[in-house]
């Protein structure tokens, strides 16, 4: 088993490990934010604080051979699925050790060994791609499942509609998982979207639809497991809406001043990490144990930053590689 799949196994079996992963994602994102703020990274990045529970729940449910098509807001899902913080950070920092070798950047993470298709920076693009992965599984008679993770804003784009209809008609093993974090860029969902219960849209395709609290990892896990099992057992696609919140701005530079006063604070009360912490404490895990996890993760992230910062940059040839496979490349 690879390091990545080991990391995945952990969070399935062990509630502490799942908590630790959520903390890892949180601290990772905060670290990335600092690196950008300090001008150490160029380009842009989209952070996922507030959405950690969903990513970890999904990763915990999926089998190693299932696949996920996610988005530019993908650090959390990559880490949850098992990608190492070093691999993600190196990609963000444009190092040759990054998961795409540094040519992709923050918006483009990929590692098929953990089932992560290249995350797309085009809204909606992943839904047909996950549908196609499910098509491959169905055609070959495999009981694997594909998942498309996308935002509330993406539920308004054509690819959403086409994918759900086609997947429904073909009864494909795919889960459409909408991470409704209330905003699409700087627009609150109610300003762009005709229905607020996004799972209602499932009715237009005669497939199951459900909305749930995406900030509670157990709730999320239960809802996702049901839909994934249904898909795996020939029950076809589902539309799930996870209710989360984007604690950060849309991207690097965004201070999110457009949020109504008090909204962030309201949602912070449901901070998935705090929620999880309380639940574990209630289950008898000690405060000290949790503090130790927090500290260990923090140390790990700090160490990763140090290592990755010293990682090599890709050489110029890297920008010419991996465009065509070799015969084609040679023919040129």
């Amino acid at each position, binding site marked *: 088993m690879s390091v990545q799949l080991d990391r995945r196994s952990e969070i399935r079996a062990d509630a502490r490990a799942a908590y630790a992963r959520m903390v890892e994602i949180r601290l990772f994102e905060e670290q990335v934010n600092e690196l950008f703020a300090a001008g150490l990274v160029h380009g842009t990045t989209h952070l996922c604080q507030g959405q950690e529970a969903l990513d970890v729940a999904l990763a915990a449910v999926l089998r190693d051979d299932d*696949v996920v*098509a996610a988005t530019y807001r993908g650090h959390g899902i990559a880490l949850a699925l098992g990608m190492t913080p070093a691999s993600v950070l190196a990609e963000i920092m444009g190092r040759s050790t990054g*998961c*795409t*070798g540094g*040519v*992709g950047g923050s918006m*483009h993470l*990929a*590692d*098929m060994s953990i089932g992560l*298709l*290249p995350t*797309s920076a*085009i809204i*909606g*693009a992943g*839904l*047909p*791609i*996950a*549908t*196609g*992965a*499910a*098509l*491959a*599984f*169905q*055609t*070959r008679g495999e009981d694997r499942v*594909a998942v498309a993770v996308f935002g509330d804003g993406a539920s308004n784009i*054509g*690819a959403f509609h*086409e*994918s759900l*209809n*086609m997947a429904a*008609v*073909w009864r494909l093993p795919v889960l459409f998982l909408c991470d409704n974090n209330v905003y699409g860029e700087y627009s609150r969902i109610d300003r762009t979207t005709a229905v607020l219960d996004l799972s209602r849209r499932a009715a237009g395709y005669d497939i199951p639809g459900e909305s749930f609290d995406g900030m509670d990892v157990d709730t999320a896990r239960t809802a996702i497991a049901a839909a994934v099992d249904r898909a795996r057992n020939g029950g076809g696609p589902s539309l799930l809406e996870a209710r989360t919140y984007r604690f950060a701005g849309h991207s690097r530079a965004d201070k999110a001043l457009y949020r109504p006063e008090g909204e962030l604070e309201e949602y912070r009360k449901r901070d998935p990490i705090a929620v999880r912490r309380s639940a574990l404490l209630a289950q008898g895990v000690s405060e000290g144990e949790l503090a130790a996890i927090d500290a260990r993760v923090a140390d790990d992230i700090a160490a990763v930053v140090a290592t990755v910062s010293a990682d090599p940059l890709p050489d110029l040839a890297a920008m010419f*590689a*991996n*465009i*065509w*496979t070799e*015969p*084609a490349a040679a*023919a*040129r």
Partner: protein
Amino acid sequence: MPTMRVNQAIATALADEMRADASVMVFGEDIAEAEGPFKTSEGLLAEFGPLRVRDTPISEMAFTGAAVGAATLGMRPVIEIMFVEFLGVALDELVTEAAKFRYLSNGALSVPMVVRASVGSGLGFGCQHSQTLENWVSATPGLTVVTISDAQSAYGLMRAAIRDPDPVIVLEPRTLYARRGEVTTGEAGILPLRRARTVRPGADITVVAMGQTVGIALDAVAACDVDAEVIDLATLSPWDRSTVLTSVHRTGRLIVVEEAPLTGGWGAQVVATAASEAFSALTAAPFRITTPDVPVPYAKHLEARFVPTVEDVARQLRTYLDTGAVPQPWWVLEGVSA
């Protein structure tokens, strides 16, 4: 050697690859039960069944993207975009996703998908169903753009496209579907991608064409009784610079015959490359014979003038060889347009 229509050659190529490789599947609108609006998938559903041969909803974005996903997960999907215009609602998945997946996976992923799309004018389908639009796809590193020109190239390039590990779009001039030609089938009939085909060797002038205009160029050359070398570009991107440049170096003269508009048409890069890289070999100005900068008109006698005609190509060829000067396009000559 059997003769078959171009659409049969395509269906045969698909069937042969599907027999050879269980991962090949086809889907698109009305391609299964109806066997394709242009009968390019005749017999496939019957032989390969509904899992591998599927009718889709009218959802080009979904099924083009599904091909990306299925290809990434080990299938070799061949999808049909009935008229290339319909890519206008799905281009993202091909250009911005499929063509980038290898790059975005450090070489770990291949996307061996084929998009087949019918293109071109000549059948009275009007301005939204008669464009060629290779410009939409042809500046895309990672995507191979192929155009067929006869039954053999339909068969041979289609099989090669399906076997290619990267995304390929095969443009099929619609007027050719009903045209018959001899076809070598089997492995021997497979043609290499990214190689131009010299369809008529010659010494005096190089004529580059693609798709529908290959036959037009050949006929015009025959009509002029000139020793022209006619090259079917076959793959537009990445194109076979060396075959063209070698020929131009030998002949010193170059004409490109295009079904593409004067402004933005594909032939410009052939002429530009020859001008840059064979400048001293050129004994006269290289030039393009293109469609006019107009939407494809419907009325039959107007549409008949849209693609360069044999007569008009022959006229320009003759003027050029006689005078060394670049001839005027017909619309200037006949005073119908500046």
